[in-house]
């Protein structure tokens, strides 16, 4: 059972570029080889929280037929979000060093 926090996973997934909810789920699943599975029910509130904390910005794309004519909401990291993502990555790496056998 992966113990990674949803907000951390979302921030790290957004480092590689702007994205929307469904694609972020796929991105996290692929980059962790299926070990971290995010639930839709949890990621949207987390995305909105990160946005209201100033770590993300969002914008709407064009309306799409497969979404019933509704637009996609894309998220991107703000400068603050990018800084936090980098700090998080460093601290997680520090934590993982012993388990990875890195001195």
């Amino acid at each position: 059972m992966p113990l990674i926090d949803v907000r951390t996973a979302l921030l790290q997934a957004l480092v590689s570029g702007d994205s929307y909810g469904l694609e972020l789920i796929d991105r996290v699943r692929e980059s962790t080889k299926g070990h971290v599975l995010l639930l839709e029910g949890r990621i949207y509130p987390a995305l909105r929280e990160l946005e209201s904390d100033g770590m993300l910005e969002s914008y709407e794309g064009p309306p799409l037929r497969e979404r019933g004519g509704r637009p996609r909401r894309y998220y991107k990291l703000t400068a603050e979000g990018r800084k936090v993502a980098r700090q998080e990555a460093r601290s997680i790496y520090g934590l993982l060093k012993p388990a990875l056998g890195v001195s």
Partner: protein
Amino acid sequence: MAAKSKKQITTEGRHDSKELKAAAAQAALRRDLAASFSATLSQQSVKSAFDSFEEVLSNISMESAGHMSALGADASLDVLREVYKSVLLNHYVREDLRRVAASVLDVWAIFLPQRIVNEDLADYLQDINRRIAKGQRWKAYLRVVAAIFWTGVNAVRHFQSQVSKKAGSSNQ
């Protein structure tokens, strides 16, 4: 009844096995033709489903044409008609499912805040359409239920946070 001579039995046996082999070869050809034709139809996907059978026949692949000449015209047409019917049926079943899912979620959307409709619910709908296209009917049904449940939960959270924000600002 006179007993059959040994020669007669051997000849009949050879004859039966020849017929069996021919039937097996025929069945294999029908299977190959059905597989190559349904592959062609699935590549053309939705567009083909609305084309007439004659139009589809005019765009038949080289592979299918090869199987057809080996199988014979009449038998080939039977196989092609069967495949075409099943592709059409599948297409309409999927379209129905797509329409039902979209209608259910559209009704549910009336009760939700616009942001949740455009973001959470529309992502669910996109995923449901993807699963329907893959033929995962039951997963699509489950996703509709999950969509209703989670968007409901998130809408309640959204209203709660709005209320607490208002309460906070009025206290200040």
